């Protein structure tokens, strides 16, 4: 019973496209137009993960088409906020066959679960991936507690 995993993975790729197709269809029903060129607030984009790596917190966001000047990262009172805007204009003089990459605005906030060292926090935008690394403050670092017998 050898399953071919590649076939299953490709089926999920088709579901991605089906989901986008549904998004477009719903948008068309509610707004009566094609993809708008003014950026709309997005809730599902960009895809991101907020991970506790042990000695630091990391936020990884997929932001294709955005460079370091297009995203804003800020920390305010233990809340980390990422925001930005992506414009995908139809180029001048071109006819549109397919337009899946919509213009979006986004703003996502995360409550930080522990104290972080703001001086050492870095944010790197490379190849369309934004990685924000927040090293934990010394008092929040994980530590071993020694177990004694008496």
């Amino acid at each position, binding site marked *: 019973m050898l399953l071919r995993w590649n076939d299953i993975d490709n089926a999920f790729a088709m579901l991605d496209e089906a989901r986008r197709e549904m998004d477009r269809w719903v948008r068309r029903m509610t707004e009566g137009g094609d993809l708008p060129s003014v950026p709309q607030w997005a809730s599902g984009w960009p895809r991101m993960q907020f991970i506790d*790596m042990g000695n630091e917190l990391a936020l990884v966001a997929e932001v294709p088409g955005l460079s370091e000047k297009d995203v804003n990262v800020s920390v305010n009172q233990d809340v980390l906020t990422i925001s930005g805007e992506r414009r995908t204009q139809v180029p001048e003089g071109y006819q549109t066959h397919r337009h899946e990459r919509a213009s979006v605005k986004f703003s996502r906030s995360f409550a930080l679960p522990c104290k972080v060292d703001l001086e050492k926090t870095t944010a790197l935008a490379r190849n*369309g*991936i934004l990685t924000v690394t927040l090293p934990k403050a010394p008092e929040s670092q994980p530590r071993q507690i020694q177990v004694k017998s008496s």
Partner: protein
Amino acid sequence: MSDKNVAKRETTDVERIERRRTYAPAVDIFENTEEILMYADMPGVTLDEVKINFEKNQLTMEGTCTCLKDYEKDDGFVYTRKFVVPGGIDPDRISAELRNGVLTIHLPKQDSLRPREIAVQAG
């Protein structure tokens, strides 16, 4: 003697089946009289991990992202999508660039197919 533990088969088999997750990237396709222009979102893919294949009017683009290995315990994932391209594209002049995770492909049309004015003569 084969390993009776079915759950561990992938580590004892000689053949390793690739199990990367596959996604279909979002794509924009535009066209004018000179070329067909395509944009594909492939965040995290670098120049050495992207492949574009054009064969018999089928264009296949594939990009692998392994840069999130520190955060996800797997081999990364693959963005792939295939398109049937209409005839009349000049394959020697196809060009592509990758910037900020967005792949841009230019498919120029053959010169013989450009629209042209035909002079009308009095006959």
